[in-house]
């Protein structure tokens, strides 16, 4: 089954979304900041990344920049989940290569999982 990398510094949110993904029969690997996420991305090569923006050590923007500098990794779909809400922040995430940007406060975890499924289906249809 598809492997999802969840990069989120808030433990509760990370565990809630992990549990929903596991319920939906996904394999889940977790990271608590961009640096850890980057290491796991390289070692595990997940099928999709759920990425928070504001995190310590390395934030989501820098993660996106590094990901898209790398030809082997840039095609892995990345869904940003953030709480910033300002259009400028969201647009920046899109410009840096995010396929989807969601505001955590607007979606329930099961809706996030639905969006993950939708994004992966699209990718499968394309490939």
């Amino acid at each position: 089954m598809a492997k999802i990398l969840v990069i989120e510094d808030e433990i509760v949110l990370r565990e809630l979304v992990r549990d929903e993904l596991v319920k939906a029969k996904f394999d889940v690997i977790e990271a608590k900041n961009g640096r850890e996420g980057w290491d796991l991305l390289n070692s595990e090569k997940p099928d999709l990344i759920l990425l928070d923006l504001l995190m310590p050590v390395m934030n989501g923007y820098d993660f996106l920049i590094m990901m898209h500098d790398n030809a082997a990794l840039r095609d892995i779909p990345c869904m940003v989940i953030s709480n910033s809400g300002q259009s400028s922040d969201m647009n920046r995430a899109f410009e840096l290569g995010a396929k989807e940007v969601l505001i955590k406060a607007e979606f329930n975890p099961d809706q996030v999982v639905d969006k993950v499924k939708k994004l992966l289906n699209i990718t499968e249809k394309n490939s």
Partner: protein
Amino acid sequence: MEKTQKYQALIEHISDLEGQVTKLNQELNVANKKDEHNRQVAERQQLQLKTLQTVSSILFANLDSRKIFQLLCDTLVGEQGWSGACVVDAKLPKVSVPAHAGSINAAGVDHIKDYALTNTYFREAYYSNNAISTLSDNQKMSLSLRSLFNAPEVMAMPLIYGELQFGMLVVCGDLKQVGNQSLDFLAVLCEQVARAVHFSHNYSHLEQQNVKLRQLDDIKNSFISITSHQLRTPLSIVKWILSVLSTDQKILELPEQAKLISQAYDSNERLIHVVNDLLNVSRIQEGRLSCTLQKGSINDVITDVWGSTYSLIENMGMKYILEIEDDLPEVGFDRILLKEALRNLIDNAVDYNEEKGFVKIKAYALENKVYIVITNPGPGISREDQKKIYDQFFRSEGAIRQQPSGNGLGLYLTKAIIKEHKGDMFCESDCDKETSFTITLPISK
């Protein structure tokens, strides 16, 4: 015979003209001689005008008052023939060197600083904003000035603009070299300089304020970003936990507990919504609401909003009626902001409803617009109040009675959002009648 006569007449005529030319030439010579004097006067005035132009053009491009005074002194010495010039400024601190040029050197400047204002005549002129010169009838004053400035002729002119005095210009020299210099010319020059110095002071004040304002703006922007994140994070945590609990098998078997969880979820949703409103309002007040319009169909947005308000309406015991046309034509919209706008209208529809009432959302396309209409029964809005409902913080008496804890921002914000969408918004209602709020959005071409 005729030809000869005509020829003769022509010769005479030419002769006449020659006579006139000679006469005119003579008159011209006389006039030229008179002109010489006028020419010299005009030359003098030309020089003064040139000085004015030089000084003016640099004056207003220069915003440093110290440089302006120096320019004045340099020009008077360099172009007008004075041997020395300086600006005496009583307000200047001891360590600052006042502007000076020509024979008034640094030592001279020190002397002037120490003694000028101890001289009765100079001091009186300085503090009453009057010009003085050695050309006056007052012999004693002339002598006093000559000795004070150690020069045969001295003129001093105040630098004033309106009621503000910036100092006193002092020029020294030999009048034979300077020519019949008038105090009037100096007065015009000094007025220009004082005006420029006044502007330069205003400019530096404005620049300082500008820097402070920009710093405040940056602080405000980071405050909004950080607050936004810090407020929404715990709200998201509560939202997600309650969401997971509400679908938990064990909880679903306990209807009372399930209802409590659902109500807690709704309450948390409202808080999220209030936080959104406050953050958006603070952004509008800066004069901008960052709105990115993207082409698309709003069917999804309406479905999302319905999804997030469904349980709220059910828990209130109200009916939720949807009449949405499929495949609405594309419009330009900002997903987050349009959802906020619709959410505001639905919240209002729920708050100002009647016992076991309903909320209806209708969406359709007509001519070149997409219409979204939200309708509900209830106390209605009077014609009078309809004029004020879009004002920030306005709450009608009826509204306060029914919902004491509203903040009066919902419609203000919604209107601002719809305006950014190049759309329109209007209300149909009256006391104790059904209320309808309609949003129209232009269809993308």
